[in-house]
């Protein structure tokens, strides 16, 4: 089909980027900072995320907004960055951040996500790494209109520490899961950790979906943000429950006991609180959108 994300503008909010990384040589990446003039990435978080997006959608027009110095920022940093990216016309937004507190989606950051979606931007958010307890999804993952992504491993199992739903007000989240365990990605050269490092967090599940959406957006540029979310969620494949994950079985005795207890308790839990609709499937989403387009409903 030959989709590369061309003519699709993707926004990323985060810790900065190392544009000197050789893998970015042929990519269209622009960056600006809201915290000074330096766009470098002293943490290495967003350099890897942009790298993943550009591996999936190599011709996408990526704009990175550096909103903090170091790992921690505050909600107002992220919201200001989102607003700048909206003004710059991004169509898809990657938000690999999460707060520590679970929320019902009425917090400022979740509202900003809903506002962006209402303005036609597809927003992909991280579920967070506070699992396996239920109701651990914070902001902006709790935003009703965003696509919240949990983390699966290479055996299609939801990872132990991927945050679980439902939201504090009882809505189903996460929406889906994507690979986020042991993901290799580019590292800023200034960190001197080598050109590539391996990540393990829901932050790295998000760019898999962001890149996929860039391809779908190129294929179907007129599809609305809500329709795009529907295409992703309705095309997911089932994932296995978390208590079967390798992480659980290989953990400490304390973890194993906790795992068994969780198995007992999980009979009362909705499996969608763990993995949402399942693991994303780009081809099925494409086919789904094709059907919608041919039926004239899109």
């Amino acid at each position, binding site marked *: 089909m030959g989709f590369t994300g061309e003519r699709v503008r993707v926004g990323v909010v985060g810790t900065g980027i190392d544009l000197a990384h050789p893998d970015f040589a042929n990519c269209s990446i622009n960056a600006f900072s809201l915290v000074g003039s330096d766009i470098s990435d002293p943490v290495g978080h967003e350099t890897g995320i942009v790298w993943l997006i550009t591996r999936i959608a190599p011709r996408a027009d990526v704009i990175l907004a550096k909103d903090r110095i170091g790992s*921690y920022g505050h909600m107002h940093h992220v919201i200001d960055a989102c607003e700048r990216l909206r003004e710059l016309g991004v169509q898809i937004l990657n938000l690999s951040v999460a707060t520590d507190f679970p929320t019902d989606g009425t917090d400022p950051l979740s509202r900003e996500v809903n506002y962006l979606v209402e303005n036609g931007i597809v927003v992909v958010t991280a579920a967070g790494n506070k699992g396996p307890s239920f109701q651990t999804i914070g902001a902006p993952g709790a935003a009703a209109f965003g696509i919240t992504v949990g983390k699966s491993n290479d055996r299609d199992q939801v990872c132990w520490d991927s945050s679980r739903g439902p939201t504090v007000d009882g809505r189903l989240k996460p929406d889906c899961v994507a690979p986020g365990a042991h993901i290799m990605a580019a590292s800023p050269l200034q960190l001197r950790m080598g050109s*590539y490092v391996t990540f393990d967090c829901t932050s790295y599940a998000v760019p898999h979906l962001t890149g996929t959406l860039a391809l779908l957006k190129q294929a179907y540029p007129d599809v609305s943000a809500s329709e795009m979310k529907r295409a992703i969620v309705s095309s997911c494949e089932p994932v296995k429950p978390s208590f079967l994950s390798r992480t659980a079985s290989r953990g400490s005795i304390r973890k194993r006991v906790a795992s068994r207890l969780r198995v007992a308790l999980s009979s009362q839990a909705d499996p969608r609180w763990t993995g949402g609709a399942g693991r994303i499937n780009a081809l099925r989403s494409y086919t789904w959108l094709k059907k919608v387009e041919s039926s004239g409903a899109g």
Partner: protein
Amino acid sequence: MAGELARELSQFPFTKLMPQSFRVEIAGLTARELETRPVKVWVEVDDIGKIVKIAGFARVLRSYPHLNFVYLETYASHLASLVRSDLVRSVWNDEPVRADGCIVVTGPYPSASAMAHGLHRRTS
């Protein structure tokens, strides 16, 4: 002063303070700490034009009309007067967001060169 403040706090709907951890944190402060502790909060109001009336001694840092939120800086002791107002629907602490704790292995990955050329099997 502490007793007066405690009485004041008990009278007003402190459930407007969000998230719960912030509410607990504020409740644990002494009167002295309340007066000296600066806080940056998001105030949700129905009519953003009336924020000057609500804010009092607070310093409005920025307003977000599309979200019905005003971002302001004040002292913790002024939170009572904020949540007391009928115009205020909620007061959110400017909570930290994090993006750390991700890296598990450093150094070159065995199939790094293959993946760098777009053969990332996880993206299929």
